[in-house]
Each structure stands twice: as structure tokens, then as C-alpha cells.
């Protein structure tokens, strides 16, 4: 038996061994001959931009996806895993980003379902852990946690590791890798580009591995020159789909030439606030004023005509029509312009698409390429290009870099700053504190439908984290 220390050498017993795993979706190799080793008693991070194949690889291990080629060995034994049940029998547990309950069922029914099968799973895992043979896969477990909660979880993971459990930790956050993992395997576009110990690695070196080149993470930001108020929200109350009050009297101002960031844990009223400003949802009371004009309760098109643009949170679901071509997507907001007798003007759409593709450096297709076949970063560029092209006065950017790789993040950040410096008012919603600090001129913290504090961009993680979770606003300044 090998030692249980995380820094054990080549002799350490392998809990999980993947050889040449290949998984093809359509024309895309989500995993292309990926090798992966997991030792007993280590936390092994699986790092990569979204869509790099991390989840696919672990779904293969957990029996949620079947590989087209490759071999899986568990504690040295070849294993065939066809379903999660098989995986559990091998002592593998996988924790998904968020395990969804079934909302129309009662708690009791959910519990019964959970007890009858979840309990079985729990018992399997615990048995496996007791044998010292457990393998745990966590898929972006911190995505929905506050910084404090994430820190707690990391502590638990370390203790488990010390007891001999093998842990795979899927993430695309560099700092998490360095904080919690012993080794890290980086996936890039379906291929493993290497496994390195975290000791001696830096965020910059990992980012380089992820993207394949050097990336500037911190952007030099000239000081803001705030102008007159462009967006004013006055005592806004908004209800959510369940008719519960989600925004409870928010007032804020965004001036031209500044970026105001709203920081908060997901689900504290951000979505409803965005909806109310962009005309997607009628507020219960209060006002939204753009350049002195009251646009409260208008529809999305009227909001846009008033100068509000919106980089929607989820580009697949809301930002783009994936089966439309690039040109059609770029025209999604202004296809009516130049239309005669209800007919489109294809020439104008094409010319505009060519211009925006050039201007925003959208790669991977011509105007006639379906947006679906673009990479995530280029898809997001389409969204950003379309929204900025309308020459808005107010930009609402909701998690504009979610799921993007480092390079694309940099692009979006630069673009937002350019808009700011061009005299636009930018309201940024983000869950990433790093992003908030990097871009914002002022930070507003949202908690349970209220703005609970305003902080400068120099605020610390601890301060923000505390406020975001309803802690006291009187945290000591750094």
C-alpha cells in the first residue's frame, strides 16, 4: 500500500485510470483520446474552459455518457460503466452542480425518491469511503456557493483527501485549482494538454495551458470620468414568476462614462431587476428613467429604442438563435430597419454582418454560417457586437463572460471598458468577484432584493462575501 500523502510519487496507487477516452458528439470530439490518472488520497482538479470536455469526461466515468473509444480502470481493474448504477457499484460518486428537486412533488415525495435511491447511493459511497476506496467527482461544486461556503467545502475536501479518498474537482476557476488541488489536468478543446502539480504553478501558467498562450488577466483601467446620469432606477419593486416580491425597492444611478457593478449571489433579485430595466417584465411600482425619459413598463423594443441594450445572461438560451446564421443573429434587433412593405432587406443585413464580423473580430464563419457552429467566445462576440452596434446609451451586461475562456473574457472586458470610455453608462451584473473588481468603478451589493451596500472596487473578497450573504455592512475596510 502506497502512502496516503498527496505528494506521493509514481508509486502511489491509482484509484482511477482513463486511457484514450474518446467521445464524439456529431462532428465534434468532446473528448479526443484523453488520458487521466487519479491517485488515492489526492484532489485532482480538471481544468478547462467551458466546452473543453471536462464534464463529458466525468460523465463517461459516471456512466452518463458512453465513450466511443478508450479504457477505464478502477483500482487497477478494467471496468465497464454503463449507467450511474454501475459507477456507484464501483464506489464512484458524482455530485452535480446542483441537484434539482422536482418542484411539483411534495417534500415528502422528494424525500421518498431521495431515500429510496439517494440513500442507496449514499450508502454505496459511504461503504466505498470506509473501504478507503472511494472516488468522488464534483462538477463545479462552488458555482452556487458563497465564498465562505466554498471555503468550508474546500476544508471538508482536504480532510477527506487526508483519509485516502480520491477526489476529482471540475472547475474553470484558476484560483480554486491552486487553493484546493494537489494536481491539475488541463483540457483544451477535448484534448488533455498536460497534468501538472499545483505546487509551483501559477494562475498565469495555468491560464497559458488552458488557452494556449499568455493572457492578460488584469486590465489596466484608466480612471473613470463620470458624466451626467444616464440610467436612474427609483424605488423599484418587481415580482418574480411565483408572484413573490423579488426586487424590494431598489434605487440606483449610473452615470455616463462609468461602470457600476451589481455583485450578489445568484437569485437575489438580479434577474428581475434586469428584466424590469430592459422591458421584459413589468415592475410593480417605481420608475426606470433613461436620459430623463421615463420608460417604466415599456416593452423590450421600446426600451431598446430608448437607448438601453442588453447582453443577456445566457447566450444559448437568450442571446442567440443558434440555428440562425451569424447575419440573422446580428440583425435580430434591427431586422426591421430598411424594410419595405414588411419585406426584409437582405443586402443591408449582409453588409452589416460583414462590417460587424470585421469590427468585432468574429472568427469561424461567414455571415451565412449558423451561430451554432461557432465557439463560445465567438458566439458571445456576436451578442456583444449586436448590442453595441445599436449605439446604446445604457448597457446592461448580465454575466457577460460566463462560461468563456480566458481569452474571450479579456476581449469582453476590454470592450466594456471601451464603451465606458466612449461615454456609455454600463450596469454590470456578475457573480465573479474578480470580474466585478476588475471592471467596476462602483460596486453595489444586492441581497434579497435590496441594495445593501456601495463599495469601491478596492473592497476585499471577505467584505463582499459577507455583504452578499446578508452579513453586517460594518466590516472593517482594508
Amino acid at each position: 500500500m502506497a502512502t496516503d500523502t498527496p505528494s506521493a510519487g509514481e508509486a502511489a496507487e491509482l484509484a482511477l485510470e482513463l486511457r484514450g477516452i474518446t467521445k464524439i458528439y456529431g462532428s465534434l470530439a468532446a473528448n479526443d483520446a484523453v488520458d487521466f490518472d487519479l491517485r488515492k488520497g489526492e484532489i485532482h482538479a480538471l481544468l478547462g474552459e467551458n466546452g473543453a470536455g471536462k464534464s463529458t469526461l466525468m460523465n463517461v466515468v459516471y456512466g452518463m455518457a458512453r465513450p466511443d473509444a478508450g479504457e477505464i480502470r478502477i483500482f487497477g481493474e478494467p471496468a465497464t460503466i454503463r449507467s450511474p448504477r454501475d459507477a456507484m457499484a464501483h464506489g464512484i460518486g458524482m455530485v452535480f452542480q446542483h441537484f434539482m428537486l422536482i418542484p411539483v412533488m411534495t417534500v415528502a415525495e422528494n424525500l421518498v425518491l431521495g431515500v429510496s435511491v439517494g440513500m442507496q447511493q449514499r450508502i454505496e459511497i459511504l461503504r466505498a469511503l470506509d473501504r478507503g476506496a472511494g472516488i468522488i467527482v464534483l462538477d463545479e461544486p462552488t458555482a452556487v456557493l458563497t465564498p465562505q461556503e466554498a471555503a468550508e467545502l474546500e476544508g471538508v475536501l482536504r480532510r477527506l483527501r487526508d483519509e485516502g479518498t480520491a477526489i476529482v474537482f471540475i472547475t474553470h476557476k484558476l484560483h480554486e485549482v491552486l487553493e484546493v488541488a494537489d494536481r491539475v489536468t488541463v483540457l483544451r478543446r477535448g484534448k488533455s494538454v498536460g497534468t501538472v502539480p499545483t505546487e509551483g504553478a501559477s494562475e498565469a501558467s495555468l491560464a497559458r495551458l488552458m488557452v494556449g498562450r499568455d493572457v492578460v488577466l488584469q486590465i489596466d483601467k484608466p480612471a473613470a470620468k463620470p458624466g451626467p446620469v444616464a440610467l436612474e432606477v427609483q424605488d423599484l419593486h418587481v415580482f418574480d414568476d411565483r408572484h413573490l416580491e423579488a426586487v424590494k425597492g431598489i434605487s440606483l444611478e449610473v452615470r455616463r462614462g462609468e461602470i457600476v457593478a451589481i455583485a450578489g449571489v445568484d437569485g437575489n433579485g438580479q434577474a428581475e431587476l434586469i428584466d424590469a430595466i430592459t422591458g421584459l417584465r413589468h415592475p410593480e411600482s417605481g420608475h426606470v428613467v433613461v436620459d430623463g425619459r421615463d420608460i417604466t413598463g415599456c416593452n423590450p423594443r421600446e426600451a431598446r429604442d430608448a437607448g438601453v441594450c442588453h447582453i443577456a445572461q445566457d447566450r444559448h438560451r437568450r442571446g442567440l438563435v443558434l440555428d440562425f446564421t451569424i447575419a440573422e443573429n446580428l440583425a435580430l434587433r434591427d431586422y426591421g430597419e430598411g424594410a419595405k412593405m414588411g419585406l426584409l432587406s437582405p443586402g443591408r443585413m449582409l453588409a452589416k454582418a460583414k462590417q460587424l464580423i470585421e469590427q468585432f473580430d468574429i472568427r469561424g464563419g461567414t455571415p451565412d454560417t449558423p451561430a451554432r457552429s461557432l465557439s463560445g467566445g465567438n458566439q458571445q462576440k456576436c451578442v456583444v457586437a449586436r448590442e453595441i452596434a445599436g449605439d446604446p446609451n445604457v448597457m446592461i451586461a448580465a454575466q457577460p463572460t460566463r462560461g468563456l475562456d480566458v481569452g474571450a473574457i479579456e476581449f469582453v472586458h476590454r470592450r466594456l471598458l471601451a464603451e465606458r470610455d466612449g461615454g456609455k453608462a454600463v450596469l454590470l451584473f456578475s457573480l465573479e468577484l474578480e470580474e466585478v473588481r476588475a471592471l467596476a468603478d462602483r460596486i453595489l451589493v444586492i441581497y434579497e432584493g435590496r441594495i445593501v451596500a456601495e463599495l469601491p472596487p478596492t473592497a476585499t473578497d471577505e467584505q463582499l462575501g459577507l455583504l452578499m450573504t446578508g452579513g453586517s455592512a460594518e466590516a472593517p475596510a482594508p
Partner: protein
Amino acid sequence: MSTDATPAPGGAPAGPAGGGGATVGARLTETLREGGPLVPVITVLLAFLAGGVVVALTGHDPLATYKAVFEGSGLNWLLPWVTGEDRDVAATNLQQTLIITAPLILVSLAVGYAFRAGLFNIGGTGQYIAGSVIAVWIGSTMAGLPGWLHIVLAMVGATLAGAVWGGISGGLRATTGANEVITTIMLNYIARWVAIFLFGLGGPLQNSAQPDVPVSNDVVNDAKLPVFWGDPELQGLHIGIFVALAAAVVYWVLLNRSKKGFEARAVGFNPEAARYSGIAVGKTYFLVMATCGALAGLAGSLDVLGWQFRIATNDVQATELGFLGIAVALLGRNRAFGTCVAALLFGALLSGTSVRNLDPSVFPPELAQNLTRIIQGLVVLIVSADVLIAMVFKRVRRRREGAPVGAAPAEVTV
């Protein structure tokens, strides 16, 4: 599960909330991209093959049967070596085929346009009935109007009636979220029973001259569509086919070149993104279903003014046109040209297996009509699994080109 899902195979839905690719329209677009026009051809061949197996298993000769159906459809008129009396028979049969094809094109476009907007219009039948009821009502009254005005009036009336009938489903979808599949099915039956009520014995629109026959009044002579090929007394081909072809052109323009069509397609692919970009999704649903209803209603007027001239309660109960339109639209990939070709195919199949056209010594028409239904069903079934065909195609093509399987596509981000 990552937020940025890996592209799903063949453009299939990426999950319950998965935006694009979730609708039939989106899937069909995908297939077209992959397989080209060859896929529908293969689909039809497979369906005919399976139908032939049924024929053979029950002790008949499939080849002779298909040949008789082909001749019954009159498509042999197109063959230059068919001459003399055969050619005259073929011409009469072809006229029948085209008479059926015209409304079929319209009803299929009514299904196809809904597909493109992410809606499933099973209500072609009801919308068709609504149109034909109004057409026969206008056509059989107001004698003395100039012929062309009477015809236009009857057609417009039928179109509007169909639009109302379809609009109900669209409006309910827009305002209450009621599933259009269910509401259109219900409206089919409601239209059916209302029509039976109207033309049934003692009904308000029942024939005034024949009080014991459950049938409508006859369309007056001036309101009948002119026949341009064949004998008007023997159901020659009326000008309805041009109306249908014109509608197909309008359909193409509407779908591909108009603002409303752009909105419909955007909503069809991804209603959420459409809403975010300022398109009124509910209004689009309503307009699309009303447009579909209008097309199907127009189809009803073509049959009434073109060759039926009256509606019997039996006709109302027997009409399967709306369902047939689903098969045609799916086979035609919801495209204008494809739909016309597919409609011709099914029109030929229907008239080729009719009692009037099929040679009963070769194959009994009663069997043949059921064979048609089986083939229809098989076509739809195979089309439903189009993703499968698309994948097969992709494999074949890749193997042919010798490209490595799973080669990562395209560009590096940024």
C-alpha cells in the same frame, strides 16, 4: 453539467430548456443541411419498399400494384411514349391528381409554416372545414353577383374563416399557454360537428330543395372555378392549382424575406431569445396560426368552388386532408418547393388508388387506399427519425472523404 453545453448530436435538443434545435422545424433544417434533397427521396423509397412488403405478404404483386397506381395517378401522361387513348385516360387521371394536389399544397403549407414557428398545427382539418363551410355558404347564396367577384368573395371568406379557426389556437397559446396540439385537435372535432349540424337534416344550411338529404346547397354556376384543362362536365382541372402555386411563392417570400417570417423563424428556433431581442412572441404565435388557418381555409374553398360544389355531412366526417398535410409538410421539409413536390406525390397516390382511377383487376382500390395510409405513416415515421438519417449521412460522407472521425472543427477562440 456545465453551463456551456457541448453541442448535442445532430442539433437535437440540449435539454428541456435547450434553446435552438428543440422544435421539429429546427430539426428538419438540420437534416436538410446534412442530407440535402436526397434524404426525402430515400425516405419515400423506404416507405414504398415497406408498403410493398405488406402487399407481397398478403399475396399480391407489389410491382404490378405500384404500376397500376402510377397509371391511375395519370403521371404516365408525362411519358412521351404514352399515346392515343392511353394518353387521354392519363390526362383525365392527371387532372384528378392535380385537383387533389392543389388543396394539399395549401394545407401542407399551413402545417409547415407552423412548424417553422415551433408550433404543431394538427388543426388543418378543422381550418379546412371552416373554410369550405363559408365558401359553400357564400358560393350558394348571392346569386347574381359577377362571377369573378363571387369567387373572390367566397375565397376571401373561406380564408378569413380558416384564419379565425387557426387564430383561436394561436391566441390561446399566446394568452394562456394552452398547447396548440390539443386545441387544434379539439377544434377539428368542433368544426366537424358544427358542419354536420349546419348541413344535417333540419340544419340551418341544409339543402333547401332536398329536405331529406344531409347536404348543403349547390354552389351557383357563376361562382365555380373555371376549368382550363379537360372537360368541365367530367371534373376537368380547375384553376385552383395556380392559386396553390401562387400561395407557395407567397409562402417562400413570407418565410424567407419578410419581417413576420423572420420573427416566426426566430420564435420557432428559440422563443426565449426572440423575446429578449424584442419580438412579441405571443403575437407571433397568434399571427402564425391565423396565417396557417388562412391557408387551410383557402384550400377548403378550392375544393368547394372547384369540383365538389356542395358539402355532404359524409364528406365532413371523412376528410383526412389536415393529417395528410402533416406528412406532406414533413416530407417537403417545410419548404415551399419541397412541399409542392411532396404534395404532388401524395396527390398522385390518393388519386392513383381511388376507385375511379385504379384498375380493380390488378389491385382492389379499398386495399390500395389503406396501403396509401400505411405509406403515409411510414414516411412520417421515417422523417421523425431524421436525425438518424442525418447521422448516417455524415458518417458516409466522412468515410468517403477520408477525414478523421471526430476531427475538431474550425477555429480557435479569439
